[in-house]
């Protein structure tokens, strides 16, 4: 039988792969954090990593904005041209992805589906940093619309995590599944404060996750998040989705680095029931 054996929350700043240097020690700390997560995925003997990301108005425009989308077939990425991250195929666990989609549709999750899909950095950066180092591990890419209005609500994202977990539990074959919430924390993208990082806000969010205080996070309004953490902090939705899939888990902080050079407060946590 399939089960969710672990979860991680991590950032995906594209500037990491655009030739922009961060201060050396911070860069080392960030690389160590990603490596720690890659190692943990290996220790957990994961067969599949579900990566929950959000589009950045790159893949989807005003003509079609899927609220909840799952990739079930051929996937490659990133769609962006990064100097240090070439496009590659990402192996997908198609049977499990298809099952999650079908189980969802039978249980009131109106999944949009991608059968052949070039993903953006929200999926490709975690794939590169924490999945690829583990040979044979496949992914399932999921997108929640948090960047383009009308956005998916935080409560819906959290509930989606629970629904994903139910779908995984109902899969008849043995799979050890890890879920990754990809995004955050504070970053402003394209607006005047871009480059600002709000470490106080980021640490407050991580402290809530350490306590497992989902209610406080769900109570945040989008206006509050935008004011304190910028457009990028709305990606807390992906983190809430992962937390929903591991209901009752608490976060264990792996690292936090505020890096204005990468315009992002970079938070890394493991979700665990071991507390």
């Amino acid at each position, binding site marked *: 039988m399939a089960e969710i054996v672990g979860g991680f929350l991590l950032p995906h700043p594209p500037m990491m792969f655009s030739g922009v240097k961060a201060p050396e020690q911070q860069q080392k700390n960030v690389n160590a954090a990603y490596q720690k997560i890659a190692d943990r995925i290996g220790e957990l003997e994961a067969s599949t990593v579900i990566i929950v990301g959000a589009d950045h108005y790159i893949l989807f425009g005003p003509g079609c904005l899927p609220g909840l989308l799952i990739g079930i077939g051929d996937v490659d990425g990133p769609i962006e041209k990064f100097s240090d991250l070439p496009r590659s195929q990402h192996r997908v666990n198609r049977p499990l992805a298809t099952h999650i989609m079908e189980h969802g549709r039978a249980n009131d999750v109106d999944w949009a589906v991608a059968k052949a899909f070039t993903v953006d950095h929200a999926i490709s950066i975690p794939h590169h940093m924490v999945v690829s180092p583990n040979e044979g591990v496949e992914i399932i890419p999921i997108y929640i619309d948090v960047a383009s*209005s009308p956005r998916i609500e935080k409560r819906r994202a959290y509930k989606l995590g629970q629904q994903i977990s139910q779908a995984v539990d109902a899969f008849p074959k043995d799979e050890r599944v890890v879920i990754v919430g990809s995004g955050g924390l504070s970053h402003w993208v394209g*607006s005047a404060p871009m480059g600002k990082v709000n470490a106080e806000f980021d640490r407050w969010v991580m402290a809530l996750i350490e306590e497992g205080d989902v209610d406080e996070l769900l109570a945040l309004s989008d206006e509050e998040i935008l004011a304190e953490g910028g457009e990028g902090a709305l990606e807390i939705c992906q983190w809430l989705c992962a937390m929903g899939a591991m209901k009752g888990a608490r976060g264990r902080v792996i690292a936090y680095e505020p890096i204005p050079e990468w315009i992002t407060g970079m938070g890394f946590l493991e979700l665990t029931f071991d507390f």
Partner: protein
Amino acid sequence: MSLNRLEQVVYDLGVKGGSRKQFSKDPERFLDGYYLDASEKEMVMEFNVARLIEVGVSPLLTMGFWVLTEPSHSVKKYLLKLSRSF
């Protein structure tokens, strides 16, 4: 004012090379296909990203539009343009 159509044209110019090519050849003719009014066309042709954000266009779109379409492609100039306005 059609925010949706403004977002559509800014999105197309940010992600579609073909759109950028047409826009650079004949911006007026390109924009005719989006049913924009005169002030909206002006915002786009003048790369008035501050005004675009002010009327509700997503900053994710305006930055992509500027970086891919505005002749300097400079993020620094983009932010300078915003900082002068906000």
